[in-house]
């Protein structure tokens, strides 16, 4: 009976690793078989914490191969995603793979991973905002043709995480800066909403990579602006949002609500999370994390592809590379 469960390992015991491990362990269809981290301190502590749970705690990625895993979650720092994911595929550790955002540090690495994906593999990247009820509602409004035609959009991603802290700013830059840490979510949402686009200019950038603004254009002329910053005053919690101008009105959406204004009728409608059935079987962090993991597990059980796949997510890495290269914007 135990073998019929999906056996999953989590690599990386930071806050995202523990969050996913907890949610995964809630699912009756899942056996959380292993936790892996290269830090000796974390492994030693975790071995004691989980000693009564039957979860293996290990420090060596290669040892996961002995555990007959069906899937692995990679929740390590972004710079290691490509190396770890490559090794998981090449060593045959597991067929199905979930990687926290962003898929890789560069588009070249992301593209290589897409090519390594085995046949009949379910692969997914942790762009969990797609599973938020507010962004889902906005997507529905767009799909239903409420707008007919979107003529332009503005997108933002703000936090105060690195406000006025130079040492922390350097940490942020080492992790890929505001684009990879925070902005990637809103880039993914814009790609989800509007389809592929290209960067046409970078209008503002900070040396440490904590703030960046840029413009994009779709092949049919639709233009959008992005403003991303981790040093924005008064953003206690990170927030992302988009506003879209259409032929019939505007849609504004963020983590908390969707607002639709139909210009001809002067009609205004607002939906908060409360109005959008935001409950889940198990809450941790935000409801979208549960839905995201549930989607991945169901896709494995049904042998179906799931989104956002590696291929879909690699487009975010492509846009980030374009922003960097447009103005020689490089993180060191």
């Amino acid at each position, binding site marked *: 009976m135990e073998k019929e469960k999906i056996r999953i390992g989590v690599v990386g015991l930071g806050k995202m690793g523990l969050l996913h491990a907890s949610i995964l362990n809630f699912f009756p269809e899942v056996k*959380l078989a292993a936790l892996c981290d290269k830090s000796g301190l974390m492994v030693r502590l975790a071995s004691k914490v989980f000693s009564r749970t039957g979860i293996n705690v290990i420090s060596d990625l290669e040892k996961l191969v002995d555990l007959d895993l069906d899937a692995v979650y990679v929740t390590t720092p972004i710079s290691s995603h490509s190396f770890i994911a490559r090794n998981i595929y090449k060593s045959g550790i597991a067929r199905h793979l979930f990687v926290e955002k962003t898929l890789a540090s560069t588009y070249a690495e992301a593209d290589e991973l897409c090519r390594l994906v085995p046949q009949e593999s379910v692969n997914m990247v942790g762009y969990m905002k797609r599973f938020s009820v507010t962004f889902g509602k906005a997507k529905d409004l767009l799909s239903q043709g409420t707008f007919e035609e979107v003529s332009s959009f503005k997108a933002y991603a703000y936090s105060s995480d*690195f406000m006025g802290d130079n040492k922390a700013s350097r940490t942020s830059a080492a992790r890929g800066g505001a684009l990879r840490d925070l902005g990637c979510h809103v880039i993914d949402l814009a790609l989800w909403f509007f389809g592929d686009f290209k960067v046409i200019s970078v209008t503002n950038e900070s040396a440490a990579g904590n703030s960046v603004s840029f413009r994009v254009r779709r092949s049919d002329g639709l233009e959008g602006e992005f403003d991303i910053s981790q040093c924005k005053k008064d953003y*206690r919690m990170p927030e992302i949002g988009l506003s879209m101008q259409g032929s019939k009105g505007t849609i504004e959406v963020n983590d*908390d609500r969707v607002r639709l204004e139909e210009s001809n009728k002067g009609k205004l409608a607002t939906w908060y999370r*409360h109005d959008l059935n935001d409950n*889940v079987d198990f809450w941790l962090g935000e409801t979208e994390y549960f839905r995201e993991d549930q989607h991945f597990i169901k896709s494995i059980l049904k042998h179906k592809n799931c989104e956002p796949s590696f291929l879909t997510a690699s487009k975010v890495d492509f846009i980030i590379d374009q922003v960097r290269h447009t103005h020689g914007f490089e993180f060191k």
Partner: protein
Amino acid sequence: MNDQPMFLVGDNPFHGISHLSQERARARGKKAASPEEAAELVLTALQSGANGFTFSVSDLTLSILRFMRERRSGKLDLYAMVPYAFEYVRTATQTGTPGLAKRLARQVVMSGGPGAIAIGLKAAITMNPSDLLSTYLAYEISRVRSSAGREMNLVSLLLNEVVTDMALALNLDWLFESYVRFLSRRSIIPGFNTRNFPFFVRKFREWDMDTSHILVATPFNKAGFQMNPSKQECEKTLGDLPSSIVLAISILAAGYLQPTVAMEYLANLPNLKGMVAGVSTEQQARETFTRARASLYKKINR
């Protein structure tokens, strides 16, 4: 603690928190009360019918306690929540998990006397999770008590919902056993915040742990906001727990509901022992707790 219903003032508005929208939170943050003003708001609420203060243990709330200590004569019941997740998550974002662990270890070890330092070091060397938990809890209790003084009584220490719910899902029964044992020995009611109330109760029963001597703070509101997996399941679980101390939080669904509607809903729930409400103005402090007393006192009298 006596058997009176609990009407507790919460601290969310003082941190600029709004679960309805970040826009509202930012507006609140810009107008956020200073620690001294926040202390005045808590005292106004207490004069209007509140009988306790619940807060996350942070530099801000410890300052509020110090102002209240200067201003108030007489006893006050405190319900402290640990850890202050926001502070720890931001530190982890800025420095990584190892950076967070080092910073916390340094604070814990350096905060106590020689005895506490020795116990803390032993826990760090042996990596015994129960010892580490005890050391951490002792650290947080000492922070609260040194700021609050003797007039204020630490009734309960509540475990933050992220830690509670994570430990539930990961089947860390030892954590709950150690937590309950450590606090019960110190005559502090072991408390838990959870956003998964039915799951919490199910796990406690599965582990054969007693739910009658603990306090559970969990969302109850007419909108079903943050009541997982559903409003109906949460209400049913509450109905099956006559002897537990269950406190309703998020009663206004983060400002989505009118106070009268919120109170009417709570008044009809069985087995509830109290409620928590945050206040941002003196008028709100007076109105909220006067209304809560009038609507709920007889209904939830324990």
